[in-house]
């Protein structure tokens, strides 16, 4: 539990906090009446609150330390992983999730369905970035650029040539992948902070081009009246179309999870992880660093391109304001918060990060505050992310033993 020493420290911490927040919490100046109100009871609340939070933090920290010292293995297998290991539990879990996903548009309003579709788009974006950041360990802060490439390729091809959603979907993906390679080439030698800065610059370049090259992209006013996804040539009304988009997104998520899962467990996936762990050793073991990095960049970008096309088709209007650095930051937070390299983690991370601000609207002005607080808490208590990645264990060898 908490020792006396910590209680004492907690007391002083809360005292210090009261002192720091004194001007905003206690003093209230009324400029009209020209009086100063001293709200001393607020200081008391502040002190009590801080003290409680401090004790809570300490308690959890102590518990965590005890856990890690007691049993090394217990900490690595989280609740979800344990649930997933048993086939029966796994099937039940999948069944419940699948039923919920299928029934969702019928249970909730079109607004909720729309919000959920957006969240699913971020799942795919997160999984794409997960290849680059989580697996290959290349910190990419300009991921939104590929998303923009996908969205604009659909918008422009639709506007000028009247191409449909399904035709442009692969084109958008491949175009984004090409841009991934284009970005990849100059940054092959870079790592860590340097790479982050260059990718950040790349993201901004794409956005600025879209904003300023009016003849090409129609500038800040954007492109409107983009066709929604076609459904065998049938006309859909707005509600049907929203449902259709939702189910399409579910399909994309499933395909993405399938593909990323397979990639992760392949020769290529192992090479990415090795690259993340130790670049020099990786090369010395015969892995072509250049090729592996480029493939990571282009595959990650491919998913962003696909989602970009989807985004343009869903909102029917795009402009450069949708592709700011904030988007990249959110996608990156999804990956980090969810757990680098973990598919379920990214899935949960995207749902939490996208749905939470949406449902915290009730708290309106405190929304971002709560959002920030949750992120900070995450980093304090679970720096490895919600669900950390576990490597596959190979069982078949035990037979040969």
């Amino acid at each position, binding site marked *: 539990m908490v020792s006396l020493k910590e209680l004492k420290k907690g007391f002083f911490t809360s005292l210090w906090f009261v002192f720091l927040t004194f001007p905003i919490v206690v003093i209230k100046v009324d400029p009209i009446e020209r009086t100063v109100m001293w709200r001393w009871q607020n200081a008391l609340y502040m002190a009590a609150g801080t003290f409680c939070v401090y004790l809570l933090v300490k308690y959890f920290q102590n518990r965590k330390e005890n856990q890690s010292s007691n049993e090394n293995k217990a900490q690595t297998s989280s609740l979800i992983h344990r649930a997933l290991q048993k086939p029966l539990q796994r099937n039940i879990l999948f069944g419940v999730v699948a039923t919920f996903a299928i029934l969702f548009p019928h249970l909730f309003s079109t607004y909720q369905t729309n919000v959920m579709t957006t969240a699913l788009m971020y799942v795919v974006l997160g999984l794409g970035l997960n290849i680059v950041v989580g697996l290959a360990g290349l910190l990419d802060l300009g991921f939104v650029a590929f998303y923009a490439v996908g969205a604009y390729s659909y918008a422009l091809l639709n506007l000028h040539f009247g191409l449909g959603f399904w035709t442009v979907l692969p084109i958008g993906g491949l175009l984004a992948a090409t841009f991934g390679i284009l970005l990849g080439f100059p940054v092959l030698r870079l790592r860590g902070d340097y790479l982050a800065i260059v990718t950040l610059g790349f993201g901004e370049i794409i956005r600025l081009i879209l904003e300023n090259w009016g003849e090409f992209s129609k500038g800040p006013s954007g492109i409107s009246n983009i066709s929604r996804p076609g459904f065998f040539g049938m006309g859909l009304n707005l509600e049907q179309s929203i449902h259709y988009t939702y189910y399409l997104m579910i399909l994309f998520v499933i395909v993405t999870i399938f593909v990323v899962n*397979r990639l992760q467990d392949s*020769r290529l996936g192992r090479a990415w*992880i090795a690259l993340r762990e130790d670049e020099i050793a990786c090369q*010395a*073991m015969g892995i072509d660093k250049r090729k592996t990095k480029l493939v990571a960049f282009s595959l990650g970008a491919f998913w962003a391109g696909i989602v970009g096309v989807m985004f343009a088709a869903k909102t029917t209007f795009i402009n450069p304001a949708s592709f700011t650095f904030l988007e990249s930051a959110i996608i990156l937070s999804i990956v980090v918060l969810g757990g680098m390299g973990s598919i379920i983690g990214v899935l949960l991370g995207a749902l939490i990060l996208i749905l939470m601000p949406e449902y915290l609207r009730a708290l309106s002005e405190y929304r971002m505050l709560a959002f920030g607080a949750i992120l900070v808490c995450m980093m304090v208590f679970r720096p490895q992310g919600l669900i950390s990645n576990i490597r596959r264990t190979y069982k078949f060898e035990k037979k040969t033993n």
Partner: protein
Amino acid sequence: MKQPILNVTGLSMDFGGIRALNSLDLDVNNGEIVALIGPNGAGKTTFFNCITGIYKPTAGDIFLTPPNSSKKISLKGLKPNQVTEKGLARTFQNIRLFPKMTVLENVLIGRHCRTKAFIFGAIFRTPATRKEEKNSLETSYFILEKLGLAGFANEFADNLPYGAQRRLEIARALATEPLLLLLDEPAAGMNPQETIELDFLIKRISGEGQAILLIEHDMQLVMSLSDRIFVMDYGKKIAQGTPAEIRQNPAVIKAYLGEEVDA
């Protein structure tokens, strides 16, 4: 049997104005254990880095000759991964495993350059990919068993005891099917018991016909293992010969112990 496998001639490496390697000649024959020794800072690891492509040598030639073939492959100017592909695999002086991968996966990485599956194969798991994957797994597991690491197969590499980590580095290098295995101070930091085990292990690997070039400071180990020894000091080769010859060589004694002052 005495067919040369690695030929290095006139290898020089400059770092700015400092000549780290000065016109070095070295050769390793098929099936031999050759040791490269010298005081700290003599340029031994620089030599390894030059022949494995991590550094680009300033001058000189490096040739690899696969056994039963007279074709010489020049390794000069190749990238590290290409050098490994041609058949030169190394370990590192300061352990460089992939800590957050399992032991088996570490060895599987070594199989990378001997396998082909790519994006398409990974996504669709074609029969060819599955067969290749199965082969890789079996080969890797076989190597782990050989080096006594099979029990750790699903363990994270950084959870392994120190000696086992050193052996895993060797396992990983062996998985690339090298013509010549380069060991950079394999016994560094090992206790005497572990060193003895390492001695057996290297002899066993060598017994299977594997040519080995090693850098080592533990003289007992070097003398027990090597067929031939090259001695370096200040980037230059100062002696070469059998262990017995090296022990008597005045230049070597001088390099290690300093010169006696004339009375």
